């Protein structure tokens, strides 16, 4: 039996985390959660997720991109996705390529898009 892929959600909004968890678990992923950037970085070390979803705006303005930069520096091997609210990407000029992101999901995230993107990227049938 194929081992389930682990996704880590780093977001300070518990409702967003819970909604994402429901979506991902329904598609057969195992979900880990972190409520801020610092917790998120520790969780990456601990659970070594197959993919990470990071909210752009957390306790600090654009702290999500700081987390992504740190993970890129630490040579995190899996794909990283950014969660951004309408307009944040344009306000803070997020460059997905520069941050080493595999993509940006706009909130509210469409479950179909989220699941098909992750499955394709992680090679899950």
């Amino acid at each position, binding site marked *: 039996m194929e081992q389930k892929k682990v996704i880590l959600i780093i977001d300070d909004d518990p*409702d967003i985390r819970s909604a994402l968890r429901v979506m991902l678990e329904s598609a057969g992923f195992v979900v880990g959660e972190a409520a801020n950037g610092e917790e998120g970085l520790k969780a990456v070390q601990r659970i070594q997720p197959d993919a990470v979803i990071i909210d752009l705006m957390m306790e600090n303005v654009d702290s999500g991109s700081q987390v992504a930069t740190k993970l890129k520096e630490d040579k995190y091997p899996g794909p990283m996705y950014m969660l951004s609210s*309408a*307009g944040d990407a344009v306000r803070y000029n997020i460059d997905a390529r520069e941050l080493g992101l595999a993509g940006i999901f706009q909130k509210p995230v469409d479950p179909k898009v989220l699941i*098909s993107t992750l499955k394709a990227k992680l090679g899950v049938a």
Partner: protein
Amino acid sequence: MTNSTGKYSQSILSKLIRFFLRDEEGSFPVFLHSLRLEDQLYDFTIVRFLVSFLIVVGSLFAKYVLKIYELNHKALILLAILLFLVNTVNFAIAFPARKKKEKSKKYHLLLVVILHLSIATDFLFLTIAIWLIGGVYSPFQTFFIFHVIITSILFSPLIAFVYTAYGYLLFLALAIVSWQQWIPPIYPIGAVPSNVPPTGTYIITVAVVQGLLFFLTASLTTHLMYFLREGQRQIVRINKDLERLCDQRKGFLQIALHNLRAPISAIAMHLQNLLYGYGGELNETQQSWVQRSLTRIDELVSFLHDLENLSVMENADLLREAKEFELNSLIEKILEENQDLIASKKHTIKVDLPEKKIYILGIQRLIREAILNFLTNAIKYTPQNGKIIVRVFTHSSYVRVEVEDNGIGISQEDIPKLFKEFVRLKQQKIEGVDTTGSGLGLYIVRQVIESHGGRVFVRSQLGKGSIFGFDLPIARRK
């Protein structure tokens, strides 16, 4: 002792300075367009150089062409040279620092002093010129009125009247010395009708008439200027209030957007989970209700997105933030990031980019948003399996970006309404096309492109498709 005398003289001096340099409210600077003080002084200096030149040309013309033999053209030319020299000194002192952005109070004071000295010497030079050309008979007397008008425009009413009195005294002195023959003026026949010294009655008449003319002109002009200044003060005050209100509105918009986005996203995502049956199967009625709620939330999200972009654009500082960026790679990035959206409607996309790299000077995130708006509109307003072409080409010093689709198109009567604020076109419901929107998107695109020195355009045919595009100036690369 020395100290207290010093203090006393300083206070008299500062009182004098305050008197001459204050405005009606008693504060610096004295001028109507105080921010343009340097420019005004500069203009006057240029005019004075021109006047020196005209005096020389005029006196030579009068002497050798009009044959006015009594004219002392040498004295007039000497006067013109003096005027030229005084003006050159003014210019040399005041204008080297003209281009400095930061101006000290001291520099400002220097300009004001130079302006006062120039006005005072102008009256004096005019009196001498008139003395050389017929004294109280001179047709050039009218120039006194011209100077009275200038001082009344530049200074507060009190100072304008001081200068008017000063000019009038100079004129009176000229009249008296002509009458008493103390320093008889030169009467060049031709320029003046007679060389007979003026009588007492004539002097009194001229003094009264000129006096009335001097003070009436000063009074009328200062009165007019008072209303103009008052109007200007009100405009400045109202502008400040408007700026404050505008800042408040921008701040409020940002806070409101921030506080609306998070809960709306959470609501939408939970509803989606409900609709997908992650919380258990829904019956048809429940599904329809959740779907309708989601549709309305989508409208709200799209409206917030546009408002957010509007707020970002309003706060962007083009001068500070503009950087050079490459357009082709930006478009490739946008397409790459929106593959899912394109695929969701099974559209085919053709990209026609020039081989040569194209650089634009501007705020990349705003231009990105403009292109993205055209692209998402093309995706949205084209039924499934549509064809979209993104085309970039250069023409003269501009680059044109076009997004063409074979979607629902826009009627000719609706085309002029596009790119305006809060415009929603009446559209029929078409299978596979979501026609909801805030009506702000294209307005924002226009604002972005025009703020970058470009223009937007659209060509469309109802039922056949549209081409939305813009032209932007290409950055000149060193």
